[in-house]
């Protein structure tokens, strides 16, 4: 459904020099830096898949989405959505895709929300039945009816995001591109948005491509992951594979106050479990990150049970957070490869 073949996007940035003299020089110079926002990236996303597009800020995620939605043209290479070049055949592609940029609005700034949807219905030529069905869905799941006659410019961020997401789904798009779609939403609404997207995917087979810094979005929506680093793809596979490739696990525990000091506790762990990273966590807890190659969960827990007067133990889900943190911190070229311990 979505195909990228050796896609690169390079920007020219004029080199700016500081100060008045520098800015004068900038005006007359033709020197520029080449920024490789996306560099020779290839991937393919089959129809009906919900894929997370993961990478640090500046990894080229948004740029790739702008290329796939026809907003910009790639410098070299090809992108196709449903078999069409999104920039050259923009109008046809626009009919088939929905787009949400969490930081921006695509609604009519000074029109009431419902008027915006009425206009969108005509722009996308949405059949009456589909329009009614979707508006009912949005009313039920996003409480869109409550926004009704408020002009978009008076909406809060959370209200606006609900309207944006509804707007992107109004015409039953075949592909949905979501760039930070739950920004500004509270926990309940975040969940409502995730449920809605999953519902639409299940009912209509909508392909979803998501970028988000919210781990809950990624785990709550996506079944596949695409990891980009410095403009290049470093991993593509199912979410499960990605999680399996994480080479550390974590255990957080709490021990009876006063039995040992924090420094002592850290020392004990360092002595008994070499190669393990122990980090003081909030409210007196300690988080233990251990490499799965070196230690098993049983060994780690055994040591903890043995040495501490445990009052609480938390074993987080396979540790996507650690993985993402490592990706975002810009670890060496293959962030999901095994072998560097914790």
């Amino acid at each position, binding site marked *: 459904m979505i195909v990228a073949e050796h896609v690169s996007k390079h*920007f020219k940035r004029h080199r700016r020099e500081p100060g008045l003299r520098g800015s004068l020089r900038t005006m007359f110079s033709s020197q520029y830096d080449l920024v490789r926002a996306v560099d020779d990236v290839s991937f393919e996303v089959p129809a009906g898949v919900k894929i997370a597009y993961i990478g640090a*800020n500046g990894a080229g*995620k*948004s740029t790739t989405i*702008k290329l796939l*939605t*026809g*907003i*910009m*043209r790639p410098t070299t290479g090809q992108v196709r959505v449903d078999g069409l070049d999104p920039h050259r055949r*923009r*109008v*046809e592609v*626009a*009919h088939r*895709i929905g*787009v949400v*940029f969490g*930081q*921006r*609005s*695509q609604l*009519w*700034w*000074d*029109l*009431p929300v419902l*008027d915006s949807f*009425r*206009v969108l219905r*005509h*722009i*996308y*030529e949405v059949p009456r039945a589909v329009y009614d069905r979707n508006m009912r869905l949005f009313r039920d799941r996003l409480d869109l009816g409550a926004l009704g006659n408020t*002009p978009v410019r008076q909406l809060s961020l959370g209200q606006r995001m609900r309207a944006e997401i509804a707007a992107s789904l109004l015409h039953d798009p075949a592909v949905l591109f979501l*760039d*930070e779609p739950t920004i500004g939403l509270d926990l309940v609404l975040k969940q409502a948005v995730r449920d809605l997207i999953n519902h639409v995917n299940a009912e209509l087979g909508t392909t979803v491509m998501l970028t988000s810094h919210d781990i809950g979005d990624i785990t709550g929506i996506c079944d596949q992951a695409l990891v980009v680093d410095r403009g290049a793809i470093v991993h593509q596979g199912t979410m499960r594979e990605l999680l399996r490739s994480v080479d550390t696990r974590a255990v957080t525990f709490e021990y009876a106050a006063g039995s040992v000091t924090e420094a002592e506790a850290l020392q004990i762990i360092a002595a008994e479990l070499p190669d393990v990273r122990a980090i003081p966590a909030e409210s007196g807890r300690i988080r233990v990150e251990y490499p799965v190659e070196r230690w098993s969960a049983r060994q780690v827990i055994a040591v903890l049970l043995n040495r501490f007067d445990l009052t609480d133990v938390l074993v987080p889900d396979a540790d996507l957070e650690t993985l993402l943190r490592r990706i975002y911190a810009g670890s060496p070229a293959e962030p999901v490869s095994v072998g560097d311990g914790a």
Partner: protein
Amino acid sequence: MSVSTARRYARLTTVLCGVSLHRLTAYRMDFLIGAASFVIRIACQIALISVIFQYVPSLGGWTQQQALFLLGFSLLPRGLDRLFTDQLWILAWQLVRTGDFFRYMIRPVNPFYSLLSERFLYPDGFGELATGIAIVVTAAGAMDLDLTLVQWLLFLPLVLCGALIHTFIKAFLASLSFWMTSSLNVMVAVNQLSEFTAYPLNLYHPVLRGLLTWVLPFAFTAYIPARYLLTGDTGLLLWTLPVTALTVLLGYGTFRLGIRRYEMPGS
């Protein structure tokens, strides 16, 4: 453009104008302030003309009523243009810089149409059009202007050509923002220059006259058609169509080129 596409855009325009009128009633205050400020500006222009004609009987061969007719006529294409293309100002000002231009690229309609549609029937245009009509009718009545059949037939097409010239000069200048990120300054300067055409062009230095006729062809939006309607002088009138066509091509072509190189900043 096929018939069905044309019909689709016509229907869309009706819908968009409908919701805009709705907006007009929702923000009545904005509308009133916009209209009031405009009426004050025009009143100043009329006062200026009256003052001048207290001292001289005619100005470059134009009587007071003729000068008023010209002033009024100049508002017609300008008002018509403003009713539909006010969003070009926003493009020149900030749409490229802030990245918000993207929304015209993701809708399944022509991006130029999509851009303009955001401000169809913006309130300010109504004031301009209404004032223009009032002045033209008053001045024509005062001098018992008698149009020939051909002049009657050409009246609306001339206004339309003038509006197109206004629109696509603006489109050209606003599109420069794709290269400069903001071209508002240039647009403000040119807009001020265009106000010169509310007065008889033969008063000005030949260089300015040439500029307003052949470089920024605002003369074709007011002076040339108004003189034809008043005196039957066809002078440069025949150039109206080619000049309009060329302006449209240049303005729209620049917009298309701008889109090709559009880079949306930020995430």
